[in-house]
């Protein structure tokens, strides 16, 4: 196996790494201050303001880093990369963080605000690091940086029996999935002899040439690694059959935590997939090496089909809004998995590829799902939580504006045109149908299943819209206006609508993000992969 030349200059080379992680470092430091400060002062406005300031400052730091350092593809040495993809994920994480802070503003109590925001900041830092990770260990740590504060948050806001059950369930299953993921990582390390992702992919794609005769079991080991990694990350993206916790946990926790759970782990899971599964891209070089393009495609095909079908059908049966949104998030993970199944087949093609489609979908999904949770939070009071579909009956009469926003989010979740959700699905389907003809039949089936699922999904979202608009109020909802929540709502709504009508900026950003990895492929292999960005200019 070819080890990258590390030994002599390891210290000097690693010296620059911290420069790449200033925003994350800042967030974690502020989180520490918040943890300490919580003992002195309990005021949610104060701590919320600090968290918001920290996120904005981190954004500023990120911006200045982008100005100073050229964005370049990950190399075989540094554990962190600073490519366009990483920057994209960092920006998504920061914007998501701002929305979540605003959303939680009036939802957390004064006493727990500091701890809550500290955990939130660490989670955002973890998400940003996941996007930048170029090393198995860093990736693992980044994912843990997301998971561990999540356990705390789940337990922080509610302490009743349901919340305890939710927290324990999430904790145990999460730890279990982490172990599986780590098991898969160990196989990857064993196969390649390195933890650096770029070197790992290099090693894996060149192994079989020399060692295929000697070590016929290597592909099997690679397959074990693949399955383990998919199982471990499948928990984070709530892929069936790793989704069981979602409805119970969402139901048992607060609306803010549910929104957090619906968004952050999903982004983290898919980002880890992109970073890790570079090794399955079969079109990479003349020899496939240990690339598992064919097997991975089948695996994701099955996973996508199961996930969207089970998610949608179970969502049909729900009356509780949180459970409904939980199953809906499962279903949307299924749609996004279509992109993952397609991605290996589309490498090097310059239409909308699977990965771009997933990135677009992740952003729009985040906006509409957090938005939907924020609407529920806006309408809920401690005495009268909005729990079931019936609680939303007739909202359009008492809160016309809020009902309109909720309808926008729900129509976007259905995938109606002029919302971000439509374009997300459009790009996914477009990518799946663009697969070269010789492998296409498999994907025609997948896309057809996706389309039928979207139609099934329309039914339960439509039920909520029908309750809001077509029914008379059952009980009046009186609540003072929560401005930060409204701001969060408006950010989500403008993203949902704006991306639906003028998606060009985000499409361009996703293409740049993925184009970065395409370029790095071409540099590594010395072959000319068609750069999507160049065609765009």
């Amino acid at each position: 196996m070819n080890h990258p030349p590390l030994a002599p200059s390891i210290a000097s080379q690693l010296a620059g790494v911290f420069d790449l992680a200033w925003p994350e470092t800042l967030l974690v430091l502020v989180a520490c201050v918040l943890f300490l400060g919580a003992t002195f002062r309990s005021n949610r406005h104060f701590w919320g303001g600090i968290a918001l300031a920290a996120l904005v400052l981190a954004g500023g730091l990120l911006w200045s880093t982008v100005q100073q350092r050229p964005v370049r593809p990950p190399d075989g040495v540094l554990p962190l990369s600073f490519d366009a993809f990483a920057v994209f994920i960092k920006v998504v994480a920061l914007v998501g963080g701002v929305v979540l802070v605003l959303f939680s503003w009036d939802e957390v109590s004064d006493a727990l605000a500091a701890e809550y925001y500290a955990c939130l900041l660490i989670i955002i830092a973890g998400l940003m690091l996941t996007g930048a990770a170029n090393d198995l260990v860093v990736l693992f740590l980044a994912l843990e940086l997301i998971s561990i504060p999540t356990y705390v948050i789940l337990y922080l806001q509610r302490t009743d029996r349901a919340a305890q059950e939710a927290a324990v369930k999430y904790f145990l299953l999460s730890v279990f999935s982490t172990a599986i993921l780590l098991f898969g990582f160990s196989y990857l390390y064993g196969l390649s002899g390195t933890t650096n992702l770029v070197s790992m992919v290099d090693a894996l794609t060149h192994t079989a040439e020399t060692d295929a005769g000697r070590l016929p079991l290597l592909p099997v080991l690679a397959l074990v690694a693949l399955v383990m990694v998919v199982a471990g990350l499948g928990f984070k993206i709530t892929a069936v059959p790793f989704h069981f916790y979602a409805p119970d946990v969402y139901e048992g926790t607060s609306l803010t935590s549910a929104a957090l759970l619906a968004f952050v782990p999903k982004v983290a899971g898919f980002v880890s997939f992109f970073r890790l599964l570079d090794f399955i891209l079969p079109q990479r070089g003349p020899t496939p090496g240990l690339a598992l393009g064919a097997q991975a495609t089948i695996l994701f095909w099955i996973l996508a089909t199961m996930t969207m079908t089970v998610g949608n059908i179970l969502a049909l049966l729900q009356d509780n809004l949180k459970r409904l949104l939980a199953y809906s998030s499962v279903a949307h993970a299924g749609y996004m998995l279509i992109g993952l199944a397609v991605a290996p087949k589309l490498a090097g093609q310059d239409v909308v590829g699977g990965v771009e489609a997933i990135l677009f979908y992740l952003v729009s999904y985040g906006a509409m799902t957090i938005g939907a949770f924020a609407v529920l939070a806006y309408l809920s009071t401690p005495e009268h939580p909005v729990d079931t579909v019936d609680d939303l009956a007739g909202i359009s009469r008492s809160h016309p504006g809020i009902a309109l926003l909720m309808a926008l989010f729900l129509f976007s979740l259905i995938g109606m045109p002029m919302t971000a959700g439509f374009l997300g699905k459009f790009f996914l389907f477009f990518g799946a149908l663009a697969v070269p003809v010789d492998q296409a039949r498999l994907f025609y089936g997948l896309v057809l299943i996706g389309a039928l699922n979207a139609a099934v999904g329309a039914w339960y979202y439509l039920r909520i819209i029908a309750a809001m608009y077509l029914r008379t109020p059952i009980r009046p909802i009186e609540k003072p206006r929560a401005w930060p929540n409204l701001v969060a709502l408006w950010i989500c709504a403008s993203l949902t609508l704006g991306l639906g009508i003028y998606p060009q900026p985000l499409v361009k950003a996703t293409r740049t993000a993925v184009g970065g990895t395409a370029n790095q492929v071409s540099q590594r292999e010395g072959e000319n992969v068609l750069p999507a960005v160049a065609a765009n200019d």
Partner: protein
Amino acid sequence: MDLPRLEVLGLIVLPLIGAVLVAAAGARRREEVRWIGLGTALVSLVLSMHLAAQFMHIERTPADAKRLTFQPHFVPGSPGTFRDPGVGLDRTDQHGTSWTLLDLGQGAVQFYVGLDGLNIWLVVLTAVLSVSAVLISWNVIEERVNEFYAWLLALQTAMMGIFLAFDIVLFYVFFEFSLVPLFFLIGIWGGPERRHAAGKFFIYTIAGSLIALLGLISIVLACKSGNELTFSIPRLVELVQQRVAFSAEERAYWTAVPSFGEIVRVWLGRLRPEEAPERWGGVMFWVFIALSAGFAVKVPLIPLHTWLPLAHVEAPTAGSVLLAGVLLKVGAYGFLRLCVPLAPDASLAVGLPLINMLAAIGIIYGALCSYAQDDIKKLVAYSSVSHLGMCMLGLFALNAAGLAGGLMQMINHGLSTGALFLLVGMLYERYHTRKISDYGGMSTRLPLLGAFMVFVCLTSVGLPGLNGFIGEALILFGSFEQQYVTSQQFPWFALAGAAGMVLGAWYLFTMLQRVFFGELKEPVVVGHHSHEPIRDLNPRELCAIVPIMVLCLVIGVYPQPMLDTIRPDLETVSRIVDKAREREVERAQRQAPVDLAAKRQEEQP
């Protein structure tokens, strides 16, 4: 930008602006809201009339007589330019505009709208019926008035957009967006079963249109080559023609159509698709199936029609008028604009037998159902199933007469069924019942309404001299010609169409006789208007109904200008189909050369 282009843009944008204004006006300002709605609808009407007048004066070029694709006029943002990757120079885009919505690198989704012979009269129809829809709702809608008019105007934008769009994604966006306003119109202001009706309507249509989306994406991707990716409908139609003419392999790849028996055998597992790749994998076949799934629900063709009676009966009058008058045409228009030009070979091989059969069954079944109804609105709703069957029968005769008849029938059915729903709505407004058995001899009580009803029924039945006759006669010619002359079979389909016309007279006149003639039987008036005496049509109602009736008469007496405007583009479609016919003959010869040779020998003793 010159005036007509601005007007085309105005047709889409103005109702949307009106909708926003109305929504912002608040629920209290009812009068203002109504007047804004009426004003917007009237301005749209004027714009569409002016556009139609200008469109009729466009000189036809000789090139038009050979075109194998559509050529929209009055395109805002035209001419577009693009960088030709082969030459490296900017070129004028014949089939596009400079208004790009989403750039995907090699190609772009554009805001490509315009007018041609296929859509100009449908746009006018939409504008006319929108005015009537606003007027008829004036006093009926008293709750949430501003929301009602906002959704109504949004619906108008969506309908205009569907007809005007020349970009395939833009078309789909408007196509699916039209569901949202109608869902609310039916669901909020509808009858007692409104929630069920709205939900059923939405789910049926969205399921079909999602499958149609797959077909649209497939055709775009199938036409993608090298550096070109286009979403423009005219360009796609042109590309399909070029591809099919390119080489024999390419032709087989596009046009291969499995026979029904083969599909069943593959489905049963008796035949592996790999064994007959040249007969199985045709792009057009799958595109046709996918697009048909979306449009057949909308038309609706017979097994997929069950949402329609429910939605029609429950919808408020304005909703019924627009649903029957315009939105049902969207399905037929989709077949005409997309399905047939993009998949001509499959339309011939599969669509012709399949859709004609479904249409023929629909004509008879709809008419019989119609006769059995006791609810006037339901009667009119089922008559739409029957009449739209007629329309599809004409379109899928796939010859010049049939296509012209189909398109005329779309417009005529829009006018006469729109008018029928308006009159039924006016009757309901007075007595709050729609049961035929509650009424009797109403023309003595409401002479004007009765007279109008007789007139509208006559147009719907197809009395010569009124509009219905033109379309239906052309459809029967076309269908007869196709089956008897071209295919040399017994003309079953034309027979079903003729039977449909007779049955149409039967159920409509039966209804007229029971409701308006005979012994006077006035229903007991319940509801909040009971203190007012029942009066005949007021000026507002006359304004809503009279223009439609005048149009019916004008089209019936002098249809030539209209037929002249639609002819060039219909000829384009029929030319495309004729090319496909030639290919079909060629395929048949290749597959069974021996039989044909033997046949020829028999013919020449």
